[in-house]
């Protein structure tokens, strides 16, 4: 095959609406476009003129599956402006909430979205008959993520209890202990999941792109840090300076913005693979062993290995959350009651690691706490340019190997899904 135009309209098994367009001419890949057609909703404009009280509630609705991350990111920005110091307990609860969304997201992405590609199915539903054990265990894992989010946040998505300075509600000590047991009981299946995804045949692609993730010495941070790092050059900066380091830009073929690293003008990836490339050393013991066994070590440059990275993160999240639950069962619940604060004018950026990658919210408030300006930088908006460049690289190599058009379509879709794009987040 030396000549073809691929148009995958409405890529299935991703969250949101997007198309991918690849043109091959004379054996060369001429064009690759991620065409994001998700309806625009204008969140940055919606929160303008509204009180700081409403912002995290509204921002949560950027995306169902990433809702916990958007809430915590927004709360962090507001707390930076007001100078609210959080208790250790509140930080632990936020960690649990975000990890709950990791289990939900990685469970749904790996099994409902990605696995059918490698199992030769169009959806996960036939797997309920062909491999009932896998189907049931996979759903249980995702279900545990929902349970964790519900226990901590009050429901499985769009958390209710997380507010400025603390939490409005907590579960009982016994419920924390029961959760810890459940989380630990899923570790064996999570380890099998790493093996399963590591066993799938994937294209050999070595990306030229950089990686960005939240970092903290000795930790694998998902929300506790305000420092971002470009892994390639080991360059770190505070979240408040994010727009000095990355630039968002518009392209005609996408309703989502694209992003590049400003100093190099190059695309970069955020997400599980970026986090593992940045903080491999700080994975939990079982997760680190699983990663090593799967040959997943930094620098891992194949974006298709993001699936394995997510599976490793499931092991990591289960171990970490079980420990957090046991600690929370011991402590004093009064510690998480929302702390008082004084409203003041200011600007700050909140940043967290959402399941799909780094998310940043910049807020400017006036002295009454009314939003003057807001900017939301989502994981997928940051990943789109990297996705296009990796698809181009992979397609170039596949065309040279003489694959059929159908095979090329399949591999392009696998690449898009491996990035775990959240298109509803990307256009917000």
């Amino acid at each position, binding site marked *: 095959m030396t000549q073809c135009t691929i148009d995958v309209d409405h890529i299935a098994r991703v969250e949101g609406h997007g198309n991918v367009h690849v043109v091959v001419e004379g054996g060369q890949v001429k064009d690759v476009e991620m065409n994001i057609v998700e*309806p625009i909703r204008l969140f940055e*404009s919606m929160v303008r003129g509204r009180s700081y009280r409403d912002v995290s509630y509204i921002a949560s609705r950027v995306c169902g599956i990433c809702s916990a991350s958007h809430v915590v990111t927004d709360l962090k920005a507001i707390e930076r402006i007001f100078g609210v110091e959080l208790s250790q307990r509140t930080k632990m609860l936020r960690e649990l909430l975000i990890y709950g969304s990791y289990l939900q997201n990685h469970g749904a992405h790996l099994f409902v979205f990605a696995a059918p590609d490698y199992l030769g199915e169009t*959806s996960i539903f036939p797997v309920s008959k062909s491999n009932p054990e896998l189907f049931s265990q996979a759903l249980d894992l995702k*279900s545990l993520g929902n349970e964790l989010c519900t226990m901590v946040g*009050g429901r499985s998505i769009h958390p209710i209890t997380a507010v400025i300075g603390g939490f409005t509600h907590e579960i009982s000590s016994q419920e924390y202990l029961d959760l810890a047991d459940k989380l630990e009981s899923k570790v064996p299946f999570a380890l099998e999941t790493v093996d399963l995804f590591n066993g799938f045949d994937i294209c050999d692609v070595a990306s030229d792109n950089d990686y960005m993730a939240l970092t903290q010495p000795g930790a694998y941070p998902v929300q506790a840090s305000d420092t971002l790092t470009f892994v390639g050059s080991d360059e770190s900066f505070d979240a408040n300076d994010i727009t000095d380091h990355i630039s968002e830009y*518009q392209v005609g073929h996408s309703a989502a913005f694209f992003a590049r690293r400003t100093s190099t003008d190059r695309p970069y990836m955020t997400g599980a693979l970026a986090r593992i490339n940045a903080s491999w050393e700080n994975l939990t013991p079982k997760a680190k062993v699983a990663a090593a066994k799967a040959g997943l070590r930094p620098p891992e440059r194949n974006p298709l290995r993001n699936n394995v990275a997510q599976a490793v993160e499931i092991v990591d999240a289960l171990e970490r959350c079980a420990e957090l639950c046991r600690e929370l069962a011991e402590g004093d619940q009064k510690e998480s009651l929302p702390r008082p604060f004084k409203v003041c004018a200011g600007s700050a950026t909140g940043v967290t690691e959402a399941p799909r990658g780094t998310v940043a919210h910049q807020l400017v408030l006036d002295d009454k706490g009314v939003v003057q300006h807001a900017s939301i930088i989502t994981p997928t908006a940051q990943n789109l340019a990297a996705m296009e460049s990796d698809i181009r690289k992979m397609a170039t190599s596949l065309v040279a190997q003489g694959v059929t058009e159908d095979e090329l379509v399949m591999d392009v879709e696998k690449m898009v899904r491996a990035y775990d794009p959240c298109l509803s987040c990307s256009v917000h």
Partner: protein
Amino acid sequence: MRNYCNNTSVNSVERACKPMPRVIVIGLASCFGCQLQITNRERYLTDVLGQIDLRYWRMTSSEPLPESYDVAVIEGAVTTQESVDLVKDVRAHAKAVITIGACANTAGIPGIAADNFDERVSQVYQDLPAAAGHVISPRSVPDVIDVDFQVLCCPIEFDRFVEVLGEALYESNRVKPTRTLCGDCKRNERTCLYNQGKICLGMVTSAGCGARCPSLGRECNGCAGISPDANLDSARSIVERYGLSVDEFDRKLEMFNQTNDVLHPQDENQEA
């Protein structure tokens, strides 16, 4: 007649050989959270799917949109001309239309942008990309087409979805309750959040969630939409009695009801 049990559908859970209602699920402008809520009760999902012939659900399967179906489930607000055309087409084909979630039912959070829409577009985009389609000021689905069944709230609750899906499949004509959330909260024996100085919208918001947010110490933000039984003036006088801001109450109500005419009585008079 086509034999639906020889299914090529995405749902191949084994069933007795009788035609099952053909269902499609469509997502418009939304966070996809309500579709997720359907998948989020894993243990019951296959039981529910076992009773329908799921013909189209882009979030979970690569099967294309079929030409005919019985029940259409719509999530999301209508924010483009393309979506207006799509929901009209769906209405023409479906025997029953179910709207799920705040975005579809009240225009929800996307509806906030309906206030001064054109200016808002330029606040975010220098040039609106062609990929955004022909954008229009956000509308709820019932503002564009007749809707037969609704599942309210942001996000929906799985149990309510199953209940309403059952009603749609078996053509229930049960009268929908219109009471407000406040009474449900009282039955939960919770202390009123107004005593803590919090502006709660439970007095005017449709019931159905079991007063979940107030039960967890968070005020109601009105995601189920204003109830047909709501007495807004009376509610405002209560807000005042607690020494809280009526303006803030009204502002808060806009969050999920921006496109609801009851919040803009003057505009109505002008039109009349």
